[in-house]
């Protein structure tokens, strides 16, 4: 059996796990809600992924990332999600890149040079405005499922303006719009525009831009709005929710390769 390398990204909302082989080919991807037992969720993801990949041996090396990176008992090493998103996206793009990752509880802007080296990064302020948590709150306020939002937002090009930084105040603004009979589609699109505006405020975005994260995976309309706001193409990898886990797996492979002979 060829060696398998594992990357696990325990985010605020979801745990993503990727297995790759020595050539960097993805063998399996698994995503589950992070829940309250991070270690158990990570182990469950590994069992499922190993089954999917037909891997009968434990990974040769595992790197954990995300907020729960300290909780993965089978991890060899841990890295920040900044590093892992960078590694995963550069593997896919092979060029200098600005990455926008929209996660459940935070947003990141990561700048890589043409060798994939981290040049600069920004995270959102403590406030969750513009993150997945914001979108979940808006869905709750509107009595909608999160999965319904994207098609609603795509159905109009006339968003309402949600001016508040604060998620709670934005919900109050939505109440006001509802009272005035504004269509739900316009409110949802307004929320998406608000998410994009919070990201654009974080850092200048120049050159090639790639968007990743669970919010991007489930809401392609946000990427359309982002591209329009930036007036440039925004690429999205095939599995945007998994770039952090992929980068962790690639880092695991690199760590294994760097080990002195005999340690393996």
């Amino acid at each position, binding site marked *: 059996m060829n060696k398998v390398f594992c990357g696990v990204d325990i985010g605020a909302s979801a745990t993503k796990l990727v297995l790759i082989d020595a050539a960097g080919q993805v063998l399996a991807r698994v995503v589950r809600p992070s829940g309250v037992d991070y270690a158990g969720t990570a182990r469950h993801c590994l069992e499922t992924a190993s089954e999917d990949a037909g891997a009968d041996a434990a990974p040769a090396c595992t790197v954990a990332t995300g907020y729960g990176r300290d909780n993965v008992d089978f991890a060899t090493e841990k890295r*920040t*999600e900044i590093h892992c998103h960078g590694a995963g996206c550069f593997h896919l793009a092979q060029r200098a890149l600005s990455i926008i990752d929209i996660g459940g509880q935070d947003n990141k802007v990561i700048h890589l040079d043409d060798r994939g080296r*981290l040049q600069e990064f920004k995270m959102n302020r*403590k406030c969750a405005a513009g993150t997945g948590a914001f979108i979940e709150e808006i869905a709750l306020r509107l009595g909608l499922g999160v999965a319904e939002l994207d098609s609603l937002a795509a159905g109009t090009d006339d968003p309402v303006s949600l001016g508040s930084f604060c998620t709670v105040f934005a919900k109050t603004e939505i109440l006001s719009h509802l009272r005035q009979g504004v269509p739900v589609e316009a409110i949802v699109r307004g929320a998406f525009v608000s998410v994009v505006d919070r990201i654009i405020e974080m850092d200048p975005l120049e050159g090639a831009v790639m968007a990743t994260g669970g919010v991007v995976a489930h809401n392609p309309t946000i990427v359309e709005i982002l591209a329009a706001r930036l007036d440039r193409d925004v690429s999205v990898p095939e599995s945007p929710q998994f770039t952090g886990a992929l980068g962790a797996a690639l880092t695991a492979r690199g760590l294994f390769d760097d080990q002195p002979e005999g340690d393996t």
Partner: protein
Amino acid sequence: MGDAIKKIQATGLMRKLMGAYFAELDQAATTRERKIAWCTSVGPAELLRSFGFLVYFPENHGAVLGSSRLAQELIPAANARGYSPDICSYLTSDIGSYLKGQTPLTKAFGMAGPPRPDVLVYNTNQCRDVQDWFGFYQREWDVPLIGIDTPRSLGDITRDHLDGLIAQHKALIPVLEEVSGVPFDLERLREVVASSYRCTLLWKQVLKLATHRPSPITFFDGTIHMGPAVVMRGLPQAEEYYEVLVAELEQRIADQAAAVDGERLRFYWEGMPVWGKLRDHAELFANQGTCVVASTYCNSWIFEPLGCDDPFEGMARSYTELFIVRSEEYKQRYLKSMCDDYAVDGIVYHDAKTCPNNSNCRYGLPQRLARETDVPYVIINGDLNDLRLYSEEQARTQFEALIEQLQASR
């Protein structure tokens, strides 16, 4: 602290001296045999001491409230009285402490509370909040409130600036004479200022030892060991303490003993400490081979102009040449020179929500400095005392990502 943190042996002496300092204040508050002045952290302490006042610094109490995390229970009490959660959390912690009758000084030094003042003396060089803070106690206790209003955002400091500030210092004298019952004595002031100057030189020597690689001291150590330079400057005990501390740190250098084992990276901390997370931050950096070697904060208690011939000129210049009251251009030059002097690999800017004057990342300075120096940085959002404004996970990820970035580039 954990194994990653190297204990400084002089800490025992510092605790003893601080204990004696507070005991003297407590006794005076009980017997009223000596007069007590409250003074802002960079207020005219030397002038007050020249009249024989015992000097108490509420900002020191603010830091103790933060580091003990008692602030979390006290700030809401001040918020409820109309002191906004958006203003200085030293102020809201301290006023909350007064309102609820709780202070770490009780456990540490057996004090019922801070010593009640006979006069309140501020300098707005730190912020306007200190004036409002002392104003609360003026209304509570009906004691005189006097102070110095320092201009802000200064580039070059002119003769006009200094003359105005000297005049303001001298204008305090009649009130201080009346409250203390002691006539002003220029020679006594010279003696106190000279002592304060000697303290400043020793404190500077302590901080400069961190230019050595590996550094014998961290920023986190510095925030604790600056205590005597803040509350005892002008007293011989402060000089005594720093002579002992300098000797210990020089011995560390001679022994090649590092404050952080295996020091690989050297960081600068710009802004206030997150007092309630001081130990966590110290351990986080130490565990990753990163020594935070220097800071604006600890260096803000170096007052070299106190060495000039005229004590009023010395005080006026010392308390106006401070980083905190200077222009963005000055601050950038200062930070650039600190990066060079301490061979800094990365900078942490702490954007303290309730302390705008100590948050130097709100007008593009980190970006400008990074372009000039190529030293990477992170900005963490937090606060000096109000941990409701701090996100542990986001700060940790940013610290670790900066360390990863620097390690990968080597």
